[in-house]
């Protein structure tokens, strides 16, 4: 190894696909607004906001972190108290760790993200899954939460400590009846956590209308922010437990390990917020685009799985025809990624042909037409 060369190559890191049409659900909603790009330059130096800190990140008045965290964010989420975390996964862990005890049960929908499972395992919880319906919809039936709660009660003599719903799930983009899950949970006095990583920042949502006790969101996935960053909202009654202070450092919140997102992540999140508010107003158009895209793909014999008509930009497809082509092509499963990339399109994972997910979020109709045309050419 030539070490000098190896070091030099780190100097000029280009992002090759920056100008391509990006269908990656992880990235579509995280694309920075022009204001956030400016903030990236302005606040990119390490813990840049800490110059102004008297001990707690969320208390910083200039730049206006306090206003954002304590005034705007709770109002935006429709919840009493909010904090910034280092991602939705951290928010889930914080809630589980503060209100559950090891060996407690948590009820989780089968469509949950892997980090929901990992967070529960890290806390030492037992997981009871609410299964989805079968192929092709994979829907979560809220009434199955009752069944799951009753089963845990029967098996252990105790109620689960928490219920969680993924809204929507990160595969099929299904939006289950969250209000009903909240109602069922509260009938048993079980707190309810809503994972809104693909909702908060993309579409209108009010935690109060749903009546969830906790909500988590993702800044880098859905709030046009540099990552990792997330948000956590909670009802006032949980504030003292979840945001309890350290015995040793009186103002530091233990579950947040003192401070969370410092520097560029929080500043891009804040800088993008006005843009995020504006784009949420166009949610109906986003849903219409996703539905149009799904219909066009189905005309090509590429089947959309999950709910129909679809209510979210995250779409999952099954493509037997592309899979058949991949069997004959020397590039095997990588042919689709390669062919799309040649046409200026990225975001579908390399190697996938038979099943893949994508998002149409923030991509205008002309560009979506270009994607459909690319699929037409590839199938031909």
């Amino acid at each position, binding site marked *: 190894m030539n070490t000098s060369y190896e070091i030099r190559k780190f100097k000029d890191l280009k992002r090759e696909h920056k100008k391509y049409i990006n269908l990656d659900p992880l990235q579509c909603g995280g694309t920075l607004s022009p204001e956030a790009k400016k903030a990236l330059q302005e606040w990119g130096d390490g813990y840049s906001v800490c110059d102004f800190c008297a001990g707690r990140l969320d208390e910083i008045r200039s730049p206006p972190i306090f206003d954002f965290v304590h005034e705007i964010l709770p*109002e*935006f*989420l*429709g919840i009493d108290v909010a904090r910034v975390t280092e991602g939705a996964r951290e928010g889930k862990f914080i809630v589980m760790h503060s209100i559950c005890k090891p060996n407690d049960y948590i009820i989780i929908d089968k469509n949950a993200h892997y980090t929901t499972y990992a967070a529960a395992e890290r806390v030492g919880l037992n997981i009871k899954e609410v299964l989805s319906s079968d192929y092709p919809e994979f829907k979560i039936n809220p009434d199955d939460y009752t069944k799951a709660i009753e089963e845990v009660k029967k098996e252990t003599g105790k109620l689960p400590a928490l219920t969680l719903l993924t809204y929507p799930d990160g595969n099929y983009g299904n939006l289950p009846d969250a209000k009903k899950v909240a109602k069922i949970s509260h009938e048993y006095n079980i707190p309810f956590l809503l994972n809104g990583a693909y909702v908060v920042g993309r579409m*209108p949502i*009010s*935690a*109060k*209308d749903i009546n969830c006790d906790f909500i988590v969101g993702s800044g880098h996935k859905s709030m046009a922010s540099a990552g990792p960053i997330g948000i956590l909202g909670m009802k006032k009654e949980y504030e003292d437990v979840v945001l309890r202070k350290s015995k040793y450092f009186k103002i530091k919140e233990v579950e947040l390990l003192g401070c969370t997102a410092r520097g560029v992540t929080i500043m891009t999140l804040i800088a993008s917020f006005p843009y995020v*508010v504006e784009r*949420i*107003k*166009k*949610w*109906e158009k986003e849903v219409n685009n996703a539905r149009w895209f799904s219909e066009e793909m189905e005309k090509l014999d590429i089947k959309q799985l999950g709910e129909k008509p679809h209510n979210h930009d995250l779409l999952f497809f099954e493509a037997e025809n592309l899979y058949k082509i991949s069997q004959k092509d020397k590039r095997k499963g990588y042919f689709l990624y390669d062919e799309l990339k040649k046409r200026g399109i990225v975001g579908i994972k390399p190697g996938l042909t038979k099943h893949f997910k994508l998002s149409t979020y923030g991509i205008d109709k002309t560009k979506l037409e270009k994607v459909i045309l690319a699929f037409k050419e590839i199938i031909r």
Partner: protein
Amino acid sequence: MKVKVYSTPSCFFCKLLKEFLKENKIKFEEVNVQEDQEAAMEMIQKTGQTGVPVTEIDGKIIIGFDEEKLREALKL
């Protein structure tokens, strides 16, 4: 012009929508669908969905705070 807004007190975009109407001096009737079940059912029947805000302008329905559509319907 008859303007009716179906909303809930905790909805962020309902608040923005009402501010927008006030700024443009548009008089409107406000219905809280969280408390008024009859109005909630009326809204669902008219729109086929449960999301708020919903604005009815002389019988024309606008779901969400869609500023472009609102400006057009209100002739702003």
